[in-house]
């Protein structure tokens, strides 16, 4: 019971931390806005306050910073929640959207849609479709790899991802070098710089459709980590739960990729950090992962937009954090 209370406190703490991070993020940027003004502008949206700030401040905050902050939080939530979910249903601590090829598949789908002058909606649909296709393929291949299943999944992921990446490269080759190619290339690096309110409105629906079931099914994911046979004898239809979770996790991944491009590592690193904080029980792990992911990507995005005069693509920064962490994960002794 005490452990349970402690974990609940941690989740609440993460929620507070996220709010603080959001306020700080509003302040950051070339145009200075103080904390008081940030809070004032935010509150004025719900409660009428006499403005003590300039119109310019409000425009910068609401039209430029707000979409970006919201999108960073959403993408962070989605990628890390998808990672945690994949890990549970594949009974594999190394599963993540990038390892499983979900990101690469979504990237291919999105690039294909850009090549064909697809609308934002088409980009998401195409990203989702190819993402799902890649994950299914990786899962099927890994089932047939002999020996250790953890390794099998990673190997299958590498194989299928590189196949899909080759497809993406081909699209780049045939893309119009004046406008399509730079769009695809820059977008593949992962960035939130183009974030607009319109993007958020568009992405938030599939993201929510994906996230809510992942939160609701979190106890079932615990049971699934015991393996299919045991889950079934405990009255849980493993195949059914896995099917729903794959669809939802892939939907959140694809909708993230379609608005932000390829942002790697979040889905692997964040769930593991959350596991360290609250343990493996998805009851607390899922909320903690979601909040942690939002905080992480928000902070990284702040660095991305403020560190240098030009923007550093997010994908580059998350790789700088993620790759060393992955090395730590695969070299550390197995818990016994």
């Amino acid at each position, binding site marked *: 019971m005490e*452990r349970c209370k402690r974990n609940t406190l941690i989740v609440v703490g993460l929620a507070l931390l996220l709010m603080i991070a959001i306020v700080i993020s509003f302040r950051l940027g070339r145009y200075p806005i103080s904390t008081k003004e940030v809070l004032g502008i935010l509150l004025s949206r719900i409660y009428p306050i006499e403005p003590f700030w300039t119109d310019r401040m409000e425009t910068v905050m609401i039209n430029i910073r707000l979409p970006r902050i919201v999108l960073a939080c959403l993408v962070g939530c989605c990628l890390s929640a998808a990672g945690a979910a994949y890990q549970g249903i594949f009974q594999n601590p190394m599963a993540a959207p990038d390892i499983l090829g979900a990101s690469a598949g979504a990237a291919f789908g999105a690039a294909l849609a850009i090549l064909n002058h697809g609308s934002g909606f088409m980009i998401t649909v195409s990203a989702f479709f190819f993402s799902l296709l890649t994950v299914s393929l990786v899962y099927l291949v890994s089932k047939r790899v002999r020996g250790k299943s953890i390794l099998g999944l990673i190997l299958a992921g590498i194989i299928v991802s590189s196949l899909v990446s080759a497809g993406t490269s081909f699209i780049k080759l045939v893309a119009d070098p004046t406008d399509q190619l730079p769009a695809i290339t820059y977008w593949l690096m992962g960035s939130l710089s183009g974030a607009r309110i319109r993007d958020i409105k568009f992405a938030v629906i599939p993201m929510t459709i994906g996230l809510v079931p992942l939160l*609701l099914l979190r106890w079932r994911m615990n049971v699934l980590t015991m393996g299919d046979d*045991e889950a079934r004898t405990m*009255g849980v239809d493993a195949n059914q739960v896995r099917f729903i979770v794959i669809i939802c996790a892939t939907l959140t991944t694809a909708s993230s990729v379609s608005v932000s491009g390829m942002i790697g590592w979040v889905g692997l690193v964040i769930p593991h950090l959350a*596991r360290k904080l609250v343990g493996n029980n998805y009851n607390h792990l899922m909320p903690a992962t979601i909040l942690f992911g939002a905080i992480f990507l928000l902070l990284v995005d702040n660095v991305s937009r403020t560190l240098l005069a030009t923007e550093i693509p997010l994908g580059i920064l998350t790789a700088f954090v993620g790759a060393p962490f992955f090395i730590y994960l695969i070299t550390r002794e197995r818990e016994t």
Partner: protein
Amino acid sequence: MSIEVLNLSFSYGEQPVLEDVSFTAESNELLSILGPNGVGKTTLFRCILGLLTGYKGEILLDGINIKRLRIEEMARLIAYIPQIHYPSFNYSVFDMVLMGTSVQVSAISTPGRKQRKLVETALKRLGIYHLKDRGYTRISGGERQLVLLARALVQQAKILVLDEPTSNLDFGNQVRVLTEIKSLAREGYTVIQATHNPDQTFLFSDTVMAMKDGRVLAWGPPDEIYTADLIYSLYGVEVAMESLYHDKARVCIPKSIVEENHVSRFCS
């Protein structure tokens, strides 16, 4: 709760694994299935638990064919205790046992107060309450087997199926686990266990079913079927069978080793 297996046959492709297996088990009965490795015990269990469906014959729980039961309905009638294992993720003993209550709550909710009470009761009954906050992968093999047993108890199914519950346990833990299993049978559970230790089978079981090459070789009370001949036909080892405590226990001793020791100790 009774379980009835009628003329069960199963094959993987051309290879028959189970052939015409029939037996029954009732409440208050501990049925041990004895046989060498690879004899089809695991396949038999997977059929009984509804994990394999392509079999011939019938499996009835209280007269109901299991093919007509949904996954949740099955879980309320029959619980499975696997061999101790290492799950991919470490859970606390409490959470591990709590998973057994999943069938009592809807798919989108988490076990609540009532289920937590059940877990506490089961942990206390098996004497492992003090381990509740420990990690499942950080306790001993015997404790782990008791945790899996507790998980099956909170599932509240009256038939328990155990796959070699004492393999990988030291002698003390074997006795402890088997004693618990026996007392569960006395409380009205129908218990079916696969086993690989002939002497313990005799000591603890109410009924023994001996299996060889996917067939039932003998089925009945242990004192009727547990003989040197049976051990020879099961394992191909010649044994001397000794009866102890007015036949309340029987031990079998491999003859070749006894003779060899005799020769080397007394004739050299």
